[in-house]
């Protein structure tokens, strides 16, 4: 997978490039909209990551130009503003996505995966998910840990499903709110944590091998430690 990163802040650009390469992507980076446009039109990239605050051209105009010239790769917009321009929201409805700075790396990676998945042919949706001895039946909305049927509320099931789908990957609190409740809010309190504690008390109850782990400062991960 090859990404195009257009970001004018050199230190962020380098840092992101390193992180993305570490995550297994090939990355081409540009610091200006002009250079970015030239690279984008080569047509070899699967996703564009574009910062809105570029020195020579607004990031949105760059996207419009690329689109006008036939480039159809999905775009992940990076923006410094949280109350995002409605034009960005419009793009989001067109299948693209945005992230506001500062963002968690894990969220960036998750959104990238999401965009790439959307861009490719829809995958066969599994009706079962499994992580270690945890089994989720997505049709009957039932979860079992070993032989034990877990008594989960619909909310808790959705939460567990989301963690399961991202097995081994860290999910942040904002990602959880966005995916489980479709809410882009940023609570200062421990609302999400309480949901996780409750879920954990059911999933990891009386077991020597807990599955749900807290990564302080980042979020949560479901993995077989």
């Amino acid at each position, binding site marked *: 997978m090859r990404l195009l990163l257009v970001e004018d*802040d050199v*230190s*962020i650009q380098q*840092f*992101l490039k390193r*992180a993305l390469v*570490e995550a297994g992507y090939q990355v081409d980076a540009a610091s200006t909209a002009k250079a970015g446009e030239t690279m984008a039109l080569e047509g070899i990239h699967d996703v564009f990551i574009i910062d809105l*605050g570029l020195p020579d051209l607004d990031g949105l105009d760059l996207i419009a130009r690329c689109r006008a010239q036939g480039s159809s790769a999905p775009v992940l917009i990076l923006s*410094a*503003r*949280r*109350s*995002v*321009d*409605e034009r960005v*929201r419009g793009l989001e409805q067109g299948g693209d996505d945005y992230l*506001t*700075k*500062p*963002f*968690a*790396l*894990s969220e960036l990676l998750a959104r990238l995966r999401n965009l790439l998945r959307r861009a490719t042919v829809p995958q066969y949706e599994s009706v079962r998910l499994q992580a270690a001895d945890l089994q989720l039946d997505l049709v009957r909305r039932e979860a079992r840990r070993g032989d034990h049927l877990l008594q989960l509320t619909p*909310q808790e099931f959705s939460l567990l499903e989301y963690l399961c789908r991202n097995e081994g990957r*860290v999910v942040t609190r904002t990602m959880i*709110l966005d995916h489980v*409740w*479709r*809410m*882009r*809010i*940023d*609570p*200062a*309190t*421990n*609302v999400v*944590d*309480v*949901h996780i504690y*409750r879920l954990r008390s059911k999933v990891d109850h009386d077991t020597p091998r807990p599955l749900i782990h807290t*990564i*302080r*400062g*980042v979020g949560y991960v479901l993995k077989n430690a």
Partner: protein
Amino acid sequence: MPKNLRATAAWRISIWTTLAFALGTAVAFSIVYFLVAQGIRERSDTWLTGEAEVLAQVSVDTPSDHLYKRIVREVAELATQEVPDERNARGERLNSVFFLATNPNNSEGPLWVGPSSKDAFVTAIQRAKLVPGPPKSIAVEGYRQTFRVVVKVQNERTVYLGLSDRGAKHLLHTLARRFLMVWGGMFLLGFLISYWSARRTLLRVERITETVARIGTEDLEERLPEPVNSDEISRLAKTFNRMLDRLQSSVNQLRTVTGAVAHDLKSPVTLIRGTLESALCDEGNEKWRDSVGEAIEGLDRLSQLLNTTLDLAEAEAGALHLDRRPVDFSDVVRQLVDIYQPAMAERHHEVTSDLEEHVVVDADLPLLNRVVSNLLENELTHLPVGCRVSIRLHSHQGSAEFVIEDNGPGFPLEIGDRAFERFVKGKHSPGHGLGLAFVDAVVQAHGGAARISESAGGGAVVTLSLPVHVLEVVST
């Protein structure tokens, strides 16, 4: 059309102009009426005097023989025929003229030409004690109208000539009746014309009001149409446009500044956060894992404060980008209560919600989410353990009322009425005092209002009212 016609300026203006118009025309007519009446009287008096003189002369000049009476009667009859309207539509005589000549030297008695009931006239003449001179009005028994009578004395003969006021009165009545009809028509027409023109003019003002209201809440790019003529209303539109220009430039300036601040501050934070995060994801190094996590959490709080400050600055300046769509407010509240419920339960708060179904408002969904979550966050952070929180949503007279009420200690005294101001917070409040200011600014940007009050038990009550989405009826 406005719902209440009587509350419009067009209505009041047209009422007043019509009243003034009606009064003016009434005064003008009264003057005309008075002049016409005077003219008619003068004319009939001139006729009377002249005719009486002729008759007196004739009666003096005619020798008092057996033909005297016949000659005088003929002349008098001729005179009466000059009077217009003497005969009615059926050709009957209306007896509007009489003539009486007395001669003390004549034994045959007075000469009478006129209605057959002579005695009533003679009595009236005697009672009036007429003297020669200008004509006088006398009332005659049996006649509704008075008679103008002139007296001439010549060679001991006295000649009385009387003319009924009936003709003049009739003329004046017709005039008055016609005028009343025309006046009524003019009154109605005048009212319609002034209402129509006032309404037309004021509709332009109304359109300006509507457009400016819309521009104020949505898009500062829009301008009022400026008509080519330069009447008062065009000048109003132009003035508004100049004002909007200034407003837009300061809003743009603010956006540029907040944008620059956000960019300049957030880029380093992004970098630091990212570096710390990748360090955290390295396995091992358990020793400083907690410190790094703490540092990241600190950075998150910092960027949260930064975000809220910038958003608030924009919201208060009316520079927020609102992407308004019909939003099911009930859904938003239900979902957020869902999210916050476990955290509330953790603090042993009892949350009850009473939500009317499908209360739809025109709102920017992400902002509305943040407003409601801000209020729920407040309850979580400020309430002591074990309180009751009641959440209600109802639509009432075109307004969605969202109420969040608790039985906690209420707003600290030192806050008073300033809960919605920036950085105003209780001494022991852990927040930064921007939450409610943000709520207020966003709700106002949506054309609503936020209020705080105290519940019966002294707890805090926050009420938001937002205009309900008006369903557009699509006719098929």
